[in-house]
């Protein structure tokens, strides 16, 4: 059983929190005392049923305003899978929170109101899904009860969306009719959709699989050097990190970046147990055949596919800070354990996230997305985001405030 991480997106009134509440409620993931607290809070829908949205609005300010401000993570489990939901706000002023949630998800559910169809917000969220290269998009056409469960409405919206998906080059898109409020097609299929023969939302989530990228060469960003320095383990020197990609095994020829020193894998340990090979995502300790100088921030990579070492890159960035991007300022770029001084010395273009048009000569400010050129003070070791997501991304930190001011996806060498 693997974990599925997904995010739900939609505008304030699309019933996103209701959908999550419904999933939790109908899978018995909400317990009596939590339900009691909801009833006590006395938030009702117009038809008198309990407002399930309150389950995900964890902050006082959110409950007061009836909107989601920050990402909330919710958990539920069935016989078949463990699920982690990032419930993110849909409003444009919280784009940064949505990107945060999406960055930790494999799949995005975009809710579309059956009465409104594809709107600006749908386009924006779809663009973000493309930008972050999420593995799958599920379009849930919601509030079908308000349009008499009409197949025609569903098909029209689906066709509209397919035009958008084609323009954005979104490859893996599925469609589904639901009513989160009424519980139609959420856990069980609904008699109201006699024209729909696909799975319910839950059975879709339980069975959805992604294309595994198994030709991805492994990388091991070193987080920590384990050196017991005791009498019996005097020469023990292990490099601890979480494996990215596949194929790491004992005997592999390796290169240490950015120094480009060569060595070989002598031993792989997983919590004290020796392994012949390690897989993607495992937190291991490796030993090398040679005594080489390695510290946190270095990356051990497969010699046959070592990735890139450069100082100038082009990247897509999402800006999160109230202070706009300053092309004269020094920022810090952090990717897997390495922090490097950088300048974002050129804004190539900005993207209007509502219609995806490029804009030139404009500043990049809060919630903006754009293409920039980054110049680093030292060598960066990385991959391109489209090739290896885990090593093709990073964050920008403003050293004056220490805040995370941008997400970075490296698109090319400049």
């Amino acid at each position, binding site marked *: *059983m*693997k*974990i599925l991480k997904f995010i739900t997106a939609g505008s304030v009134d699309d019933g996103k929190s209701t959908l999550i509440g419904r999933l939790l409620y109908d899978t018995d993931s909400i*317990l*009596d*005392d*939590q339900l009691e*607290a909801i009833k006590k*809070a006395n938030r009702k829908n117009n038809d008198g049923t309990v407002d399930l949205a309150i*389950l*995900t*609005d*964890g*902050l*006082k*300010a959110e*409950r007061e305003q009836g909107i989601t*401000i*920050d*990402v*909330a*993570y*919710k*958990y539920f*489990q069935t016989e078949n899978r*463990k699920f982690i939901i990032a419930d993110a706000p849909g409003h444009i002023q919280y784009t940064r929170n949505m*990107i*945060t949630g999406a*960055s*930790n998800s494999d799949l995005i559910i975009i809710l579309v109101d059956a009465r409104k169809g594809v709107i600006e917000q749908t386009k924006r969220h779809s663009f973000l899904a493309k930008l972050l290269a999420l593995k799958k998009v599920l379009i849930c056409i919601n509030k079908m009860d308000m349009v008499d469960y009409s197949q025609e409405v569903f098909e029209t919206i689906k066709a509209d969306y397919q035009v958008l998906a084609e323009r954005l080059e979104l490859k893996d898109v599925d469609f589904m009719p639901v009513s989160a409020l009424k519980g139609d097609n959420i856990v069980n299929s609904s008699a109201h959709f006699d024209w729909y023969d696909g799975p319910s939302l839950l059975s879709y989530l339980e069975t959805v699989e992604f294309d595994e990228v198994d030709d991805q060469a492994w990388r091991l960003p070193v*987080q*920590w050097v*384990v*050196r017991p320095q*005791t009498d019996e*383990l005097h020469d*023990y020197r292990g490099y*601890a990190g*979480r494996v990215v990609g596949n194929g790491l095994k004992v005997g592999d020829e390796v290169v240490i970046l950015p120094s480009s020193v060569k060595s070989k894998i002598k031993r792989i340990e997983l*919590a*004290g147990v020796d392994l012949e090979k390690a*897989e993607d*995502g*495992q*937190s291991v300790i490796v030993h090398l055949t040679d005594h080489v100088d390695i510290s*946190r921030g270095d990356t051990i990579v497969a010699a046959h596919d070592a990735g890139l070492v450069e100082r100038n890159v082009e990247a897509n960035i999402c800006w999160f800070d109230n202070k706009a991007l300053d092309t004269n300022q020094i920022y*810090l770029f*952090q*990717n897997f*354990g390495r922090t490097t001084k950088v300048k974002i010395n050129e804004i190539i273009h900005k993207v209007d996230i509502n219609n995806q048009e490029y804009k030139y000569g404009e500043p990049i400010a809060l919630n903006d997305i754009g293409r920039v050129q980054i110049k680093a003070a030292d060598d960066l070791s990385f991959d391109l985001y489209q090739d290896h997501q*885990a090593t093709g*991304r*990073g*964050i920008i930190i403003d*050293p004056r*405030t*220490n*805040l*995370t001011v941008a*997400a970075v996806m490296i698109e090319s060498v400049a």
Partner: protein
Amino acid sequence: MDYLDQLEAESIYILREVAGQFENPALLFSGGKDSITLVHLALKAFRPGKFPFPLVHIDTGHNFPETIAYRDWLIDQIGEKLIVGYVQDSIDAGKVVEQKGKNASRNALQTVTLLDTIAENGFDACIGGARRDEEKARAKERVFSVRDEFGQWDPKRQRPELWNIFNGKINKGENVRVFPISNWTELDVWNYIKRENIQLPSIYFSHEREVITRNGQLMAAAPFLNIDEEDVIETKSVRFRTVGDMTCTAAVDSEATALDDIIAEIKASTVSERGARMDDKVSEAAMEDRKKQGYF
């Protein structure tokens, strides 16, 4: 990798990030199952080396004796450093005033002792066993959660936390609370404890105990509960599902003596884990309010 392997690998990764990013971190140890799980994960992250941090226990003075015995046993087993901050010291120094009345608890006072202990030792990061599934305010918290120099959490100004890249950069006086098991649920923790054969304090398992019923909850009949003639002391088979101190942690009726029984009990339960915490019942936003003050 199955889902427990995935959770474990992520938590070890986070623990190593703490080691790599901070000068002087600490692991907050309560003696509860979540912080015991953290210690187990730290063993996996850093052995055969030593932990790059001490364990810190905030002792309210109202702990279950079993918890303290377990703590001392564990420290002896793993040979790591333990620092204890005493709420009694904060009371004696006049920094906090003990609550009055029948339901008085030191739960709120321990925040002051915690913040003092952090300040005295100059900890820049404190690792805790909080999980997002526990409570709705915790569902909003980052893995690396920055606290200002007053120890406060500002839920509206949290840093975006992207992918698995954690920004541990802080300004002077600030510190970071780190939650490596954010993505675990109560059931995940129990399944993991079973798989890894982790030893727990005996109070998690069914035992005979003198209890009183207060506000609809079964409380251990401890001297700090201000027991008077209205309270009826009974002996029951109970266990504790969550372990705070004796004034705020309620027992549940249970015959579960083995991990399998406990897992079956949790799966069948219709009440959440924190349903047995009096400290959460103060108001709708009890946890959010306490977190803003510096609580976990």
